[in-house]
């Protein structure tokens, strides 16, 4: 109890307190089994709601940011600065007719969007949003995330295959090639950090970065891994300059050409959420996740940093990375499929393999910053 009070005063805006109150409330009024069930349902609902809210916010932000890059204003009609535009779009998408495609493979066509969205919800659910704000803290968190996020490509392939549309088909095939290639790079660059932190559990990875982010702790190899992760993560989300599966100027809309209404909405939401997930994972693994900026020995400063709640730190870091991703997206032309695969197989993958080796050497020979300067950075 002593610890908890301390936590309350030192971290005033954390959500831990509320969560615990709810937990206590449920456990008083319900049997243990039911309480767990109710909590599960609550967490699920909360995650879904956050999922949708983040997607809507991201769509708005992306449109505004893109507009700024392009000397435009972006949405500005609905509400001040057009803030309600996403909501209006959502309502429109919800009430639109779902068009049945002749000669489409009905079942596959129907399930494809679910694959995509389920994959991204599964990944989303495992993210550590803040201190004690994680639905489940697997001991193989990184591995789990890689596994579920690669499910999405099945949905994209199905969508392209079942649409009975040549553009969709080409888009889906591109997506398959792209996703499988870049999954490799993303995996390797995360593994580099797993080597550095010695764990796959998110909570431990974050705890390990208390005084020194992995990005700096592993210096050169970590920075290369970070760069590669950003590139391959960007590619995995099918966003420009890697948006070949959609390739608006070539394939009209690629794999989701034939989708309408809510089904299209699923693809749309998951695209934005995937962007968030990639940014969130990068923030967690490389930039210390929800851990506020801490400097060893500066207790007052550290305490001040804790007044900013951990989830703000988390979203802030992820937001910064997302802004970077938008910046890249709206600056570069699209790659061609062979250039894309060249980039992966001739540049990123070899670099990654070497990098992994370098990281192993760095860790084994104690050249990480925490081990070189334990007084400054050691936990």
């Amino acid at each position, binding site marked *: 109890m002593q610890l908890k009070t301390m936590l309350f005063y030192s971290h005033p805006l954390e959500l831990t307190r509320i969560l615990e109150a709810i937990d206590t409330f449920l456990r008083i009024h319900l049997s243990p089994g039911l309480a767990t069930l109710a909590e599960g349902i609550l967490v699920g609902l909360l995650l879904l709601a956050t999922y949708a809210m983040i997607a809507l916010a991201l769509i708005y932000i992306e449109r505004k940011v893109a507009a700024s*890059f*392009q*000397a*435009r204003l972006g949405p500005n009609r609905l509400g001040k600065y057009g803030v309600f535009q996403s909501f209006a779009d959502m309502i429109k998408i919800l009430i639109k007719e779902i068009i049945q495609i002749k000669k489409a493979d009905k079942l596959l066509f129907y399930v494809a969007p679910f694959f995509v969205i389920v994959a991204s919800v599964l990944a989303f659910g495992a993210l550590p949003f803040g201190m004690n704000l994680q639905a489940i803290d697997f001991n193989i968190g990184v591995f789990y995330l890689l596994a579920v996020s690669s499910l999405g490509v099945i949905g994209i392939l199905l969508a392209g295959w079942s649409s009975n549309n*040549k*553009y969709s088909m*080409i888009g889906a095939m*591109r997506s398959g090639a792209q996703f499988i290639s870049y999954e490799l790079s993303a995996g390797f660059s995360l593994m580099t950090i797993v080597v550095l932190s010695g764990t796959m559990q998110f909570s431990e990875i974050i705890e390990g970065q208390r005084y020194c982010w992995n990005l700096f702790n592993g210096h050169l190899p970590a920075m290369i891994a970070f760069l590669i992760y950003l590139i391959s993560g960007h590619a995995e989300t099918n966003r*420009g*300059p890697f*948006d*070949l599966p959609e*390739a*608006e*100027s*070539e394939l*009209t809309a690629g794999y989701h050409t034939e989708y309408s209404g809510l089904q299209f909405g699923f693809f749309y939401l998951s695209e934005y959420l995937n962007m968030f997930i990639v940014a969130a994972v990068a923030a967690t693994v490389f930039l210390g996740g929800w851990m506020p900026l801490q400097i060893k020995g500066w207790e007052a400063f550290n305490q001040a940093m804790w007044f900013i709640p951990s989830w703000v730190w988390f979203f802030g870091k992820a937001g910064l990375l997302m802004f970077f991703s938008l910046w890249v997206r*709206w*600056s*570069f*032309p*699209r*790659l*061609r*499929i*062979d*250039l894309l695969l060249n980039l992966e197989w001739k540049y990123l993958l070899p670099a990654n393999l070497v990098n992994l080796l370098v990281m192993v050497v760095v860790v084994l020979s104690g050249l990480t910053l925490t081990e070189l300067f334990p007084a400054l950075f050691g936990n």
Partner: protein
Amino acid sequence: MRDITHIIRQAAEDAQIEERQKLTVTVKPRQLHPVVEALYRNKELPFDYLVSLTGMDWGETLGVIYQFSSSADLTQEVVIMTATADREDPLLYSITDLYETAHLNEREVYALFGIRFINNPDMRRFLLNDQWKGFPFRKDYSHDTGLNPVTVISSEIVDVAPCIRETADGKLIEENNPVFDEEDYIVNIGPQHPSTHGVMHFRTSLDGEIVKKVDVHSGYIHRGIEKLCESMTYPQMLHLTDRLDYLSANINRHALCMCIEKAAEIEVPGRAQYIRTIMDELQRISSHLLAWACQCNDLGATTAFIYGMREREHVLDIFDKTCGGRLIVNQNVVGGIMFDIYPDFRKDVNVFIPYMRKRLKEYDDFFSHNPIALGRMKHIGYLSREDAISYGVTGPAGRASGWSCDVRKYKPYALYDRVEFNEVMRTEGDSYARYQNRLDEIAQSLHIIEQLIDNIPEGEVCAKTKPVIRLPQGQFFQSVETGKGEFGVFVESRGDKTPYRVKFRSPSLSAVSVMPLICRDAFLSDLIGIAGSMDFVIPDIDR
């Protein structure tokens, strides 16, 4: 010129050779191919550039007017006419074996005049659909709307190309050649597609992502402007030229005005010439800016698209203040210009020039050296010099293949002989060369404007013309350099206040006709990128 007459005489003794505005030769249908071939194979001055191929209905006879020029010297020109009296099944000989650009042009003539060309391997109708009844450009065409009712039922595209072949012993055989193999995986790029810059339709057969064959379908916005012109007086016709290549609206109109002025012997005041030249160059800048923007957009850089539009806006603002139109500027009239420049014109243009120069630098930083962009443009869509000439690809695209074809240099009009500018040339022949050519031409245009803007003389802006303009009997030609290439106007007059036949030589048609060649074995993505680099405008093709 004597050599040429000599060559023609050798190939066809009884050819009728006249010195009109251009050297005009009339030959019998049988002699056409030998004469053309002799000119084509002429060592010293090969007439290897088919400028235009114009179908004609002279009343009793149907025929074709060919306008040839030499790639080495564009000032050398020969016009060859041939005609057949058979109106039921008119047959002429094809010259597609010598000039690639003849393919689509002969198909167009077939669709509009019903003349079929022997030995043309693909005699489908171009611009019109297969079901069209009658030949609309003939003088005896029935305008009854019941003949070709508007239908909402879509008809399947039949990929079969009829053709008439002449065997060695002189017999004519009709054949049907399939356009695609049965196994081909055909994707329709267009007519509704974000990157065909209008309602263009490429039937593309793919092997994976690799383009095997492209078949060009066009005519979705064919308005028959040339036919419309036949019922309009010369001043009325002018407003239709703005609607061909709308990005070079002012330059097109300039061409028609000059053609009429030359024929009617109207002297254009000096002030008007200055303003025309400046406006043409501004128009070229806006056209190239849009081409740059669209090419970048086709490669996936949407931001560049908006940047191009942003700069183009400044040009359009100047247009809008000068003549009250932005896209369709309506500036040139017969005898001069409609509106004198507004008081701040000089100031605005002088502000624009350094602004645009700064932006060109920015474009370079932004896109020209981007490794992704280079990968998408370098060594892509290679067009050799020979092919550029054979397909009649002019403008920045032709000059990117090392063919010096700037009409402003060879046949200077307005003030181009008095200003100093470089013809931007490159020899790589790829998308990147075309891309750079456009940016460099913007710089050259700025340079031209700079020389003129502070020296505009005082005076009239429009010569006095008769209330009703009649051209003397004859054939009149005029070409200009638009943003896309050589734009030609041909007017045949019988002395009336309306023309007998008008033909516009469209640079975009050549640009699109070369697409099947330069896209072969490219990636699907590159097809789009190459189309962007060729910079064609559909209303210019469909006319």
